[in-house]
């Protein structure tokens, strides 16, 4: 009896060991190993690649790169904004020979990219946000889009379709990029309906699903009938609003599939155009600009197709403004502009244009325009 048992157990262990070895040999390296002839590009996401939000927008860009000939794409998701991203970057560089990296999350930049980039001068690091200055290593690039232009279009559409004129905005943190979106959305709505208001609730972090649902519910309880958001995954807000019969303007990428009835339109990133462009430049050995910004005109952002509830008047006005933005002749933040405390923030005649000259001011915005109900903490 005893020896039988030992034998069986030994066999079992042998089998398990063999299985594990096969799995280790077969599974892991092939998933990561690239052929020498390929140009290897790595994408790192802070969340899941199918989050209907920030990460999905980047993953769509990565998918476009995958279709290019002679390019090998590596992807790693759910990488936290700590030393883990440094390990991911180094393993992509050392083991897979990646020459171009897109560590996409905001918090990857300082200190992680800044620490790794100087060690690998022949590798290019492209980061989505506005932090590069000419004092930093030249192999780091920063790109970003004026996505508030698309939030402005969202506002125009919402201003037309909202019955109560009460709009809601679920926001993560009161940082300039978020405030730009809140303000542009409100200005767009006020262009149509000067009495329109935007209630804003800050949840305090990029991914707070329950709090986002609570915020959305409490705004709808107060008579808001159209919501938009700036959080990592707009999924929860979109689904909550749809269930309550409210309308939604999306963000990051299209959430139309989540809200067939109430989805109006959305502000989307257009990384599917930009990433192949950057990869082509890198393959040819050209220098990607260290500081790259653009809106509709440069094709960095796009608008979701209009939903069923959007009327012809709304479509017409939204399309006109979008055409003007694409032509580069439309200014969103122009004086005289007051904040919601009555203080003048942009004087008559002045403006914050969507061009590199105003980027520093745009990216240090710290006010909420008239019509926004809510307060900036601190």
């Amino acid at each position: 009896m005893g020896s039988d048992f030992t034998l069986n157990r030994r066999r079992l262990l042998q089998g398990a060991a063999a299985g594990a070895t096969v799995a280790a040999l077969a599974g892991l390296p092939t998933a990561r190993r690239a052929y020498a002839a390929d140009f290897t590009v790595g994408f790192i996401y802070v969340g899941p690649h199918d989050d209907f939000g920030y990460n999905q927008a980047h993953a769509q860009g990565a998918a476009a790169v995958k279709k290019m000939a002679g390019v090998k794409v590596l992807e790693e998701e759910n990488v936290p904004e700590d030393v883990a991203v440094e390990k991911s970057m180094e393993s992509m560089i050392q083991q897979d020979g990646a020459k171009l990296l897109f560590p996409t999350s905001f918090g990857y930049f300082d200190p992680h990219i800044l620490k790794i980039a100087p060690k690998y001068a022949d590798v290019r690091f492209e980061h989505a946000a506005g932090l590069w200055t000419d004092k930093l290593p030249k192999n780091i690039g920063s790109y970003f889009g004026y996505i508030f232009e698309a939030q402005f279009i969202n506002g125009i559409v919402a201003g037309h379709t909202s019955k109560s004129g009460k709009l809601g905005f679920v926001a993560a943190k009161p940082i300039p990029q978020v405030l730009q979106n809140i303000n542009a959305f409100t200005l767009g709505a006020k262009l149509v309906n000067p009495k329109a208001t935007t209630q804003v609730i800050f949840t305090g972090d990029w991914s707070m699903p329950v709090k986002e649902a609570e915020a959305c519910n409490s705004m709808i309880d107060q008579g808001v009938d159209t919501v938009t958001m700036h959080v990592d995954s707009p999924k929860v807000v979109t689904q909550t609003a749809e269930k309550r019969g409210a309308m939604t303007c999306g963000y990051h990428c299209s959430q139309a599939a989540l809200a067939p009835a109430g989805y109006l339109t959305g502000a989307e990133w257009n990384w599917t155009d930009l990433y192949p462009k950057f990869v082509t430049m890198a393959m040819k050995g050209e220098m990607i600009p260290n500081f790259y910004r653009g809106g509709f005109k440069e094709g960095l952002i796009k608008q979701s197709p209009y939903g069923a509830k959007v009327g012809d008047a709304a479509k017409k006005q939204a399309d006109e403004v979008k055409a003007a933005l694409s032509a580069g002749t439309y200014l969103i933040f122009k004086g005289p502009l007051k904040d919601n405390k009555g203080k003048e923030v942009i004087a008559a005649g002045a403006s914050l244009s969507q061009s590199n000259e105003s980027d520093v001011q745009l990216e240090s915005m710290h006010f909420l325009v008239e019509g926004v109900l809510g307060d900036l903490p601190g």
Partner: protein
Amino acid sequence: MHELTAILLTTVLASTPMLFAGLGELVTEKSGVLNLGVEGMMLMGAVVGFAITTVTGHASLGILCAAVAGAAASAIFGVLTLLLLANQVACGLALTIFGVGLSALVGKSFIGSPLERIPQLHVPGLSDVPLIGPLIFGQDALVYLSIAIAVAVHLFLNRTRPGLIVRAVGENHDAAHALGYPVIRIRFLAILFGGAMAGIGGSYLSLAYTPLWNEGMTAGRGWIALACVTFSTWRSSRIVLGAYLFGFFTIAQLHAQAIGVPVPPEFLSMAPYLATILVLVLISRKASLVRMHAPACLGKVFHSAG
């Protein structure tokens, strides 16, 4: 009036998960065991409740399985602390971390799948009475269940002999042991009850409050439930008050932002913990007060041989 109703209604919804978990933890702590794993057990309940309801289409089965999942998670804690005599604080913290990870793993494929909210009661006529109508006659079954359990726990601990035995075990396990009470078994049952309640509380989040599953969706509610027990100075009647008060803080914080009340939302989110610390300071000032309220053997390891 409409908005006040909305605030009160959402307060009840926001409080119910904390009330369930708090009642469970109260019984656990009354038996002398400090289980800091409430957050992890709630998450297990939330994910299992959501998954079972999604797959089978029966919310009641989902809630039942959530209770079993919470109890199963607490059983691990029970084995470690009661049978293997491991440190309760360390095991409780580990249980929370374990629950966060395991629930994320189990729930991976359920992220983003839609689910209908469990139905709310509607009594024709009564549910339409302004303010109190929807508040009293328009809730879902779990809200009524939470109130019923609160009353039951109160009666159990204060009016029944088994309740007295649980409290005796929590006050002095050596004396209870000497009297012949099975300390380990009683504590194990109390831990299981705590786990089951935390599981139901978690499932309330994923089935009723915000019908969705997302990693770490409890977002600190387990800790608030723990704070609630201390805040109530281990009195069952005050658990209800504490849970509703803390629920009100979470809701008020959203409405305050929207209305523009000049109170920073961060202050309101830390209010439950501040209130708990305040209560702790107040009762700790007098040794007699502490002795009167806190179970004397709370968190202490019981060696049955010694």
